[in-house]
């Protein structure tokens, strides 16, 4: 791996003042742009999903094109639970997280034995397999028609989901905050440091006696569980699960979002989905034919000229200003 990651193990884990900025902005959105709250909830959900990917791609250095398998598992678990047992959102979240985490653990044990192309292929194959299962098990998942018609109860019996998406937005924000806190703790912990070590130099980590495989499986399981959490969140805020949540396209888009923001630095997972989804909302409506061309061109440009993504460009700009005026 020769990716230019700016992030990684930092000795000082205290929260810097600027790290509160995203939360302030998110709260501001709630008051300033109430008509965009459904889009906002979706962005927040995808930020969680991107965070989960950042954990294994950005910190663990595992390239996967199949992360939607866990997102979809969480989404379907929450949906099926709401149809058959209870529509209590928190129970659904836990169910989605556990289901995806379990799948992540089982598949992680298997696929993390390989590297490179074989690993990439295995992630693809597992996602395709999950997709086929959901497609064929129509009595549980609704197949191609999707799973809908379930109701989501008020959160802990108090906060009812309203039609403007206000509750949903705040709900997503609180869940994201918890995920962010967890991921941040993980990344700044010795465990996170050893993950970064695996990414930077796998052989040397083996040489110093780090249990590389075990670390990766743990990280992969946590990442899958977080992806499942995001999936369950999507199910509850949209009250629908479609086959798309398991699609390979979603995995691809997710990688694009993360890379656009910046890999291996937590906040790349915030900025990437935000920019991507707002651009999609705006451009895909007006120029549906050009949208994918535009995304493809941006990807090529990022790879050729700006490997750090948006945050990498910002870093470079700030460094240049410092040199000039500092």
């Amino acid at each position: 791996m020769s990716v230019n990651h700016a992030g990684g193990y930092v000795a000082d884990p205290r929260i810097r003042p600027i790290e509160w900025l995203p939360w302030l902005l998110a709260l501001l959105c709630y008051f300033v742009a109430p008509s965009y709250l459904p889009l906002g909830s979706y962005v927040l959900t995808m930020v969680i999903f991107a965070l989960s990917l950042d954990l294994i791609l950005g910190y663990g250095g595992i390239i996967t094109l199949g992360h939607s398998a866990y997102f979809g598992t969480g989404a379907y678990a929450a949906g099926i639970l709401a149809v058959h047992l209870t529509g209590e959102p928190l129970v659904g979240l836990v169910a989605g997280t556990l289901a995806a985490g379990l799948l992540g653990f089982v598949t992680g044990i298997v696929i993390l034995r390989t590297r490179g192309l074989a690993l990439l292929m295995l992630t693809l194959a597992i996602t395709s397999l999950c997709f086929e299962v959901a497609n064929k098990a129509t009595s549980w998942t609704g197949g191609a028609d999707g799973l809908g018609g379930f109701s989501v109860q008020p959160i802990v019996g108090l906060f009812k989901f309203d039609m403007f998406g206000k509750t949903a937005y705040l709900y997503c924000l609180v869940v994201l905050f918890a995920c962010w806190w967890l991921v941040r703790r993980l990344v700044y912990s010795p465990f996170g440091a050893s993950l970064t070590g695996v990414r930077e130099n796998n052989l040397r980590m083996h040489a110093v006696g780090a249990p590389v495989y075990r670390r990766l499986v743990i990280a992969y399981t946590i990442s899958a569980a977080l992806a499942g959490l995001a999936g369950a969140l999507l199910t509850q805020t949209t009250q629908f699960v479609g086959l798309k949540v398991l699609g390979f396209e979603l995995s691809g888009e997710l990688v694009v979002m993360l890379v656009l923001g910046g890999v291996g630095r937590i906040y790349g997972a915030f900025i990437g989905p935000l920019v991507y989804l707002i651009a999609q909302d705006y451009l895909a409506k007006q120029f549906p034919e050009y949208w994918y061309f535009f995304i493809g061109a941006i990807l090529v440009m990022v790879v050729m000229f700006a490997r750090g993504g948006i945050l990498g460009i910002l870093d470079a700009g700030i460094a240049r200003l410092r040199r000039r005026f500092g």
Partner: protein
Amino acid sequence: MQALLSSLVSVAFHGLAYGMILYVISVGLSVTMGLMGFVNLAHGVFAMAGGYVMLSAMNRFGVPFPIAIAAAFVAVALASMVLERLLYARLYTAGELEQVLFTIGLIFMSVSVARLIYGTLPQPVYLPEYMKGQLQYLGRDFPTYRVFLILFSVAIVGLLWFGVERTRWGAMVRAAVDYRAMAQSVGINTSRLFTLTFALGSGLAALGGALGAEIIAIQPTYPFEHLVFFLIVVAVGGLGTLRGPFFAALLIGVADTACKYWVPEFGAFFIFFATIAVLLWRPAGLFGRAA
């Protein structure tokens, strides 16, 4: 008994045709991945481009079938050469993630360009008269075009094997796959070799896409939809070999056809399970050397 035998023959025949097409498309991917270590997810783009070139030449300009096929090969090979020099070559030393992202970007762009020019519907395939109809053999009917596909692909495979095993160019390619630095130091111009091999691989993909347009419909989502299968062929067969992907492609062609014929509900399951099993058993593929 008679019915079972007849369906067995039919599945084997159509599976063979499908497998051969898969091989012609994917073999270039195996060579470029083995030779340059480049994860080229956009390989299907070349196959799709080949299909579009052939079909537009035939449907719009009335070019005869054989010339349209040749045009697909030449046009895509030349275009890919430009692409390799301008873009791919810069990323040979980059990490896997960059290569994956770059080629996904190419797929996105090509999908939208294809949609812009040709719309979202699959392109119709009008075969010439002499390719239509059935051939009789041992009291059975075989579609003429599929017979042609199999024979033509066999000829291409034979040529390719001869080229790689018996010619000077082939020896250079094998040397570079084995040990690139050593090949360079004995005076092989590896970057020119890469360009030529890349162009040949893309040209073959175009040929496969064009020939197989009747089996694998040419539409804008082509590079995404069939990517998994091309990759499976390469990953299961093994990188940098000609033999591995050949067996993998035939296996997948026949297995996929058989599943669709007998157990359509489990169509894709078997392929994916088999892929996972093979990759766990031999991560470098059936015929690949362990990294």
